[in-house]
């Protein structure tokens, strides 16, 4: 069975620009071609597009625009974890022998329809994600004696990190007071606790072991994959203070990679809202239940950028279909020692956590250099 590596990448700056989805996909892919040695259109066997956009046939359209006639091309939608779902699909095509080299491009507009899950009507009038996030925050704070001020460390840390990410939406530092004084959306959520929908694209190139050296001297191997879907509807979560799908996905990914939490040098965590970061750290097993916030505060005070070095979703922005791919690009750059000001020391093994719809599904990837 061939090993699978990440061998190239390209991104656009996350913004509020009013761009056509096809244009975002094209720009991210052009950037990938520009930065990947020896890559030509005929090398690519499959083109996958990750998006929640309503436009149709986007993988064929992207292929047409960049002059590829792939064997396999289709779109993948899974709300906020569309990006890592696409990477898992590409991995599977390569592992099966159906493809040797796969291009994945993820893109979203600031007005993505993926922000509201219409199916989940049993949330009544409370379908916007800020309401499930409020319920998560309330439940987590009460269960583990965590305060709004504690949770504010997440956006403060992540905005600080995103200042070193040229593709991030936010380029400014914020303080604990800024978070606490920002617009109160509910009793348990403020504006600066939220990741922002935005326009952005990111593309990544995966190749089999046989072909990877053609494109890079530093292939980054996908060694662990875990995915779990528990439900589609938010209220079916058994509790609102941990993430069951994340817990199960992480366990599968660690088993596959034959690694454990202590082996991870750098991680991308799906901080759609402040509370999601400590909840995910607990559920993956980086911290004991309820102690994720302690790990975040220690990381902030020691000036470590091990947790969400690119600024997470809160600092970078959250173009849904691109997010999981940008998270994967960040870990790839970290393991290649090419993360510039964001570089974490001795980064050899990294983890990506990407989830959708109030953690009713999760993907966890382990990458190694």
């Amino acid at each position, binding site marked *: 069975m061939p090993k699978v590596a990440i061998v190239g990448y390209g991104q656009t700056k996350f913004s509020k620009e009013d761009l056509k989805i096809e244009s975002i996909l094209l720009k991210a892919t052009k950037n990938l071609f520009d930065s990947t040695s020896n890559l030509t259109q005929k090398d690519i066997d499959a083109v996958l597009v990750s998006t929640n956009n309503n436009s149709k046939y986007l993988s064929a359209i992207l292929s047409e625009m960049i002059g590829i006639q792939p064997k396999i091309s289709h779109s993948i939608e899974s709300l906020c974890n569309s990006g890592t779902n696409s990477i898992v699909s590409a991995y599977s095509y390569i592992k099966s022998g159906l493809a040797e080299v796969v291009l994945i491009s993820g893109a979203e507009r600031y007005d993505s329809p993926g922000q509201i899950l219409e199916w989940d009507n*049993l949330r*009544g*009038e409370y379908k916007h994600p800020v309401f499930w996030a409020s*319920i998560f925050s309330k439940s987590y704070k009460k269960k583990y004696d965590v305060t709004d001020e504690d949770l504010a460390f997440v956006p403060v840390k992540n905005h600080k990190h995103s200042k070193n990410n040229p593709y991030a939406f936010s380029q400014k530092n914020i303080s604990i007071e800024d978070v606490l004084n920002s617009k109160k959306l509910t*009793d*348990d959520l403020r504006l600066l606790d939220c990741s922002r929908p935005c326009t952005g694209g990111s593309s990544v190139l995966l190749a089999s072991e046989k072909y990877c050296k053609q494109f890079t001297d530093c292939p980054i191997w996908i060694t662990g994959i875990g995915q779990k879907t528990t439900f589609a509807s938010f*209220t079916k979560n058994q509790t*609102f203070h941990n993430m069951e799908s994340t817990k199960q996905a992480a366990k599968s990914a660690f088993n596959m990679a034959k690694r454990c939490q202590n082996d991870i040098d750098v991680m991308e965590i799906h901080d759609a809202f402040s509370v999601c970061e400590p909840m995910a750290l607990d559920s993956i097993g980086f911290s004991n239940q309820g102690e994720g916030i302690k790990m975040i505060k220690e990381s902030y005070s020691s000036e470590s950028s091990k947790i969400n070095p690119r600024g997470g979703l809160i600092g970078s922005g959250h173009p849904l279909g691109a997010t999981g791919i940008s998270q994967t690009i960040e870990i790839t750059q970290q393991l290649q020692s090419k993360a510039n000001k964001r570089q974490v020391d001795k980064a050899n093994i990294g983890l990506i956590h990407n989830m959708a719809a109030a953690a009713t599904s999760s993907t966890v990837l382990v990458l190694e250099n």
Partner: protein
Amino acid sequence: MNFESELKKGKFLISECNHCKKIVWPPSEFCNQCLKENSWRKCSPIGTIIEFSKKENTYFCVAKFENSIKIIGEIISGIPKVNGIVKIVDCGIKNNNYFFKMTSKMLSN
């Protein structure tokens, strides 16, 4: 008759499997356990608050009904408390969104 046609009339139904008697939620024609046909019946309007928060001056909560299904609704009167009792007093579909309005009262000893 289906869930939405009845909800439009202000009636809150649940689907229950004719075969294994499981309440199937979200509402569906078929059981998600045995895949046999479900039937519709009225849901008890009395539920228990699992969690709540507040937007501006309005409380909203996740409440559990028939010790099985959970929905989110607005609390139109009373101060909510986890494990407190709520009663659905109005429901329907407005602007393509379901809505559930509940009153909250403290547990009596």
